[in-house]
């Protein structure tokens, strides 16, 4: 019974963001998130440099 329920659910047309992808807008989101990630890495890197320079004093 459970399996039949799952199969009927899977056979339904599931709404996914196909339109978003075909119009290319998902890449905008990706670029924004990558910018956040890289700025975070850069921040950590700068912080580490600051700590290391303090350590060398």
């Amino acid at each position, binding site marked *: 019974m459970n399996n039949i329920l799952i199969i009927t659910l899977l056979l339904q047309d599931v709404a996914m963001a196909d339109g978003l992808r075909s119009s290319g807008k998902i890449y905008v989101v990706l670029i924004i*998130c990558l910018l956040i990630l890289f700025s975070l890495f850069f921040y*950590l890197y700068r912080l580490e440099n600051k*700590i290391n320079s303090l350590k060398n004093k």
Partner: protein
Amino acid sequence: MKFIKFFCVVLLTYTLIAGFLFDVPRLPILNETIRALYFHVPMWFTMIFLLLLSSFNSYRYINTGKNYYDIKSYNYANVAVYFGVLGLLTGMIWAKFTWGTFWTNDPKLNGSAIGMLIYLGYFVLRRSLKDESKRGKISSVYNVFAFAMLIPLIFILPRMADSLHPGNGGNPGFNVYDMNSQLRIVFYPAVVGFILLGIWITDLRLKIDELKNKL
């Protein structure tokens, strides 16, 4: 450390690109939110891994009595709880749009919340003791015990009860219905990437504490 940073940057960049663009299973209700798996679940994996390191360092402190291990275990726990809070918040947002509510009295959710509170208790305990060796001993024993409490709260008790959360309610962790190979090729690198990020941040905190010790 250089390798850790390098792989952290590479894996998390891959996680974001693949996580947004690769194909995912088409499931009702979940829709595109299935991609949150790549970001929500690694938060918890990172927390558990860092807490494991934390309790291991507490164990070493109890054995050796070297203050260095106590500081290490404190910093690991601190970063771990930060990831845990992120895990709770991301889970709440995900739950709002799939289960319809931010919070339900689900054993998995309550268990993880209690686990967080146990670790907040650890920080309060540390702050309340001024004497270094006393603080080290008491908080180390507490920390080892806290990890032993966390495992049943997050992994065992939710599996013995019915739960909305995937991977619970009598099922083993990630079975064929929860995860397929499409998800795995992004999910596992994501877990490793976030764990390495946690280690990186902890390393920075440890360097600051080292400097404080010298002053």
